[in-house]
């Protein structure tokens, strides 16, 4: 057993990106303790056996680096960028944070208070609120719909002992991926990273839940009530297939044709023809399991009802007729041409490799993207939208002032829709 190492050279850049990623994430936080993995990662960067939190912070910045920790649904990482001259001491510091974190009680209490405050502050961001509300309903209360940072209610339940346990579960050679991009040679990386990481236990106690989301039926609406909104934030959609599954490529191409660009169908109808919203886009989220395919738009409050009606009608058209031959050809050209941005820099190339490995994408997912996209015929694209687009099985999340806009939402989505309302500052959101 040994730690996997990814390297993307970039001589002459003058800096190096380092990543230590564990392919275990917030999906396995215990029910009621959502945010545990995120809090554990925060606590890990709060000091080592020989350094306080303040000393770690000062050292990172004195070295000409920045350092971030984060927990996603399926993976966690500690990552940083440092000027080439200080690579070695920075790598040692990163390793110490993983191998010998102090995990002190007072640091835990402080990290918990800061994360709680950040969750509260996030309520200022209407788009973020809409995105969280969408996932909550989309995954029907399942693990994938829980925010990785937890909620105010769940974070209060997490203890320092939970974090110590979680750190032990996470940090093992089996789940660890060490990666670097930029001004560094592989031989140097092996010495700097792999040799010290051999001290980690081989096997991880962190288990993947294996939970697969299940599609829902009917139209479910969650209104996030916030005062004084002159504009609504809308997420609307349902599950879409993960990379490697049937119809993934067909839906990816169709989604780009429908709402992936400025000149796509959605933007033309919502913004260009009607001026209802500054933007209107559709996007298929790539993840380890099936995840959201959604439309995002943000019309003025006065246009919310008509805008919802229009978008739903467009989804019906897309399901029935699919994309046109011109749209397909356009989307293929767009995806093929823009795929260069996925691998533009060494850091981009590294990120694609980490993503592929930790999210279980087919190994050639990005390397063969062009070939697969060009192989999508009109028939395949239409089969994908017929099978995957479901205008009668929608999740709709809307941040708005409900007293002013709630009736318009109900009228636009019909009597069959299940509508619930939650306050924007509800502790469980």
């Amino acid at each position, binding site marked *: 057993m040994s730690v996997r190492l990814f390297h993307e050279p970039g001589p002459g850049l*003058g800096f190096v990106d380092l990543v230590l990623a564990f392919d275990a994430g917030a999906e396995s936080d215990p029910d009621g303790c959502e945010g545990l993995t995120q809090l554990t990662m925060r606590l890990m960067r709060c000091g080592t056996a020989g350094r306080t939190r303040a000393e770690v912070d000062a050292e990172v910045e004195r070295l000409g680096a*920045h350092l971030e920790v984060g927990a996603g649904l399926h993976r966690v990482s500690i990552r940083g*960028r440092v000027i080439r001259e200080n690579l070695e001491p920075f790598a040692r510091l990163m390793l110490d944070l993983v191998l010998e974190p102090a995990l002190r009680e007072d640091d835990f209490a402080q990290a918990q208070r800061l994360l709680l405050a950040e969750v509260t502050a996030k309520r200022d961001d209407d788009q973020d609120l809409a995105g969280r509300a969408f996932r909550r309903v989309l995954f029907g209360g399942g693990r994938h719909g829980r925010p990785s940072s937890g909620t105010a209610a769940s974070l209060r339940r997490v203890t320092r002992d939970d974090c110590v346990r979680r750190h032990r579960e996470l940090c093992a050679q089996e789940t660890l991926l060490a990666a670097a991009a930029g001004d560094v040679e592989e031989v140097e990386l092996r010495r700097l990273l792999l040799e010290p990481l051999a001290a980690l236990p081989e096997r991880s106690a962190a288990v993947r839940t294996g939970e697969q989301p299940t599609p829902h039926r009917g139209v479910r609406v969650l209104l996030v009530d916030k005062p004084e909104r002159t504009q609504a934030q809308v997420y609307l959609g349902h599950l879409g297939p993960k990379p490697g599954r049937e119809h993934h490529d067909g839906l990816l191409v169709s989604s780009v044709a429908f709402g992936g660009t400025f000149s796509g169908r959605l933007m033309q109808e919502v913004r*260009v023809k009607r001026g209802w919203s500054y933007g209107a886009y559709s996007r298929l989220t790539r993840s380890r399991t099936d995840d959201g395919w959604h439309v995002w738009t943000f019309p003025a409050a006065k246009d919310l009802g008509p805008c919802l009606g229009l978008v739903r009608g467009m989804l019906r058209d897309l399901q029935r007729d699919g994309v046109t031959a011109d749209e397909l050809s356009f989307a293929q050209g*767009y995806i093929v041409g823009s795929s*260069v*941005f996925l*691998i533009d820099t060494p850091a981009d190339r590294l990120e694609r490799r980490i993503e592929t490995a930790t999210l279980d994408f087919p190994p050639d997912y990005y390397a063969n993207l062009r070939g697969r996209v060009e192989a999508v015929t009109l028939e395949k694209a239409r089969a994908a939208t017929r099978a995957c687009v479901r205008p009668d099985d929608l999740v709709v999340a809307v941040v708005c002032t409900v007293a002013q806009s709630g009736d318009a939402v109900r009228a636009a989505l019909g009597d069959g829709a299940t509508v619930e309302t939650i306050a924007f500052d509800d502790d469980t959101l």
Partner: protein
Amino acid sequence: MRRIPLGRHTVRLETLDNGLEVLILADPGSPVTAFHTWFKVGSRHERPGKTGLAHLFEHLMFGETENLKHGEFDRRIESVGASMNAATWLDWTYYHETFLPDHLPMMAELEAERMARLTLGEEQVLREKEVVANERRFRVENSVEGAASELLWKDAFRVHPYHHPTIGWMDDILGFTVEDCRSFHRTYYAPNNAALVVVGPVDEERTLELFRRTHGWMQRQEIPAPPDVVEPPQGVERSQRLPWPTPTRKTCLAWRTPELAHPDHAALTVLAQVLFGGRSGRLQRRLVHDGEIATDLQGGPGSFHDPSLFEIWADLREGRTHEEALAAIDVELAGLAATPPAPAELETARNQVLLGFRSALETAAGRADRLGFFHVTVGDVGAIERRQQELLRIGAEDVRAAARKYLVPATRNVLLVDPTEAAS
């Protein structure tokens, strides 16, 4: 022709006969080409009653031209997977595309087409005004940061055009006519008011020849001088409050500080690193990590053509008060004015300057962005390298002197955001 060093590269600057400036950074190793068109016009050039015109016009530039029907411009660019967008700010407007290198001729032709042959009709202007009104709702009316920033600048500048927001006041946006837009186009979108920037695996001579063909025929215009307005000194503190549906208070401060080209700007930039940098900056520790008064803290000097603002934004934690935040900020500012930063703080600032400089030049688009921005804002691309050297030379006494000179309690602008009853 001039050649100007930039990191590992060299930039070639040429001026065509019609006054159009061209900056080329040939990088054979780049997998993409970045192409920018910068115009030396922003909201600073607008007058009261017509605010937001530069930004509205940026939107209109994606419309119909003499040879391209509506939507064709975007469609052709996106059909080859190019990334494109535009931005307007106080001093400039720019349009940018990044794409596979073979497509440069097509991009140059498309940009030239809309620069010289844009057609503007009633319906198009009416529709785009509504889109911009929605953008204003998004960025200002439903965003506490946007609303607070707008009020702070409005109060800090009473006569200078930095008083009004780039997106414009809502009444002005809705009041624009087609003739306003046509006149703006004629006046400011002239070759002698623009600069083209190319970064990528290009041949310099062939690229210049391309631009002579696509842009060289355009006629130079008389460009009006920008408003020559100097904001009078601010003798007393200005304070205002903003009620907002937010869960927590926000404390915002601003002082007037010099323009980007001013010798003191570098010292203020290092000062900002000492106060706000990363997690170890003095105010980061006092307000966020040790004092637990704020959740988030940002600050620093504006980088503009004219004197602007050094701003502080503190997003307070639940239950914490403006008085606590203001007291903590006062203590740290007084400390910096009394005692210069320690050698370790300066070492941190220097290394962060190096990291920021190298990171900014990582991509072709990043390099094109730096080139265009410095060329238009300071008037000299050589200022990019010089500024890095200035930042590395700043000493402890320079930082203390800047704190004493500019961050003076009597001349600050204060904006306090308080949760409305419905949201508290």
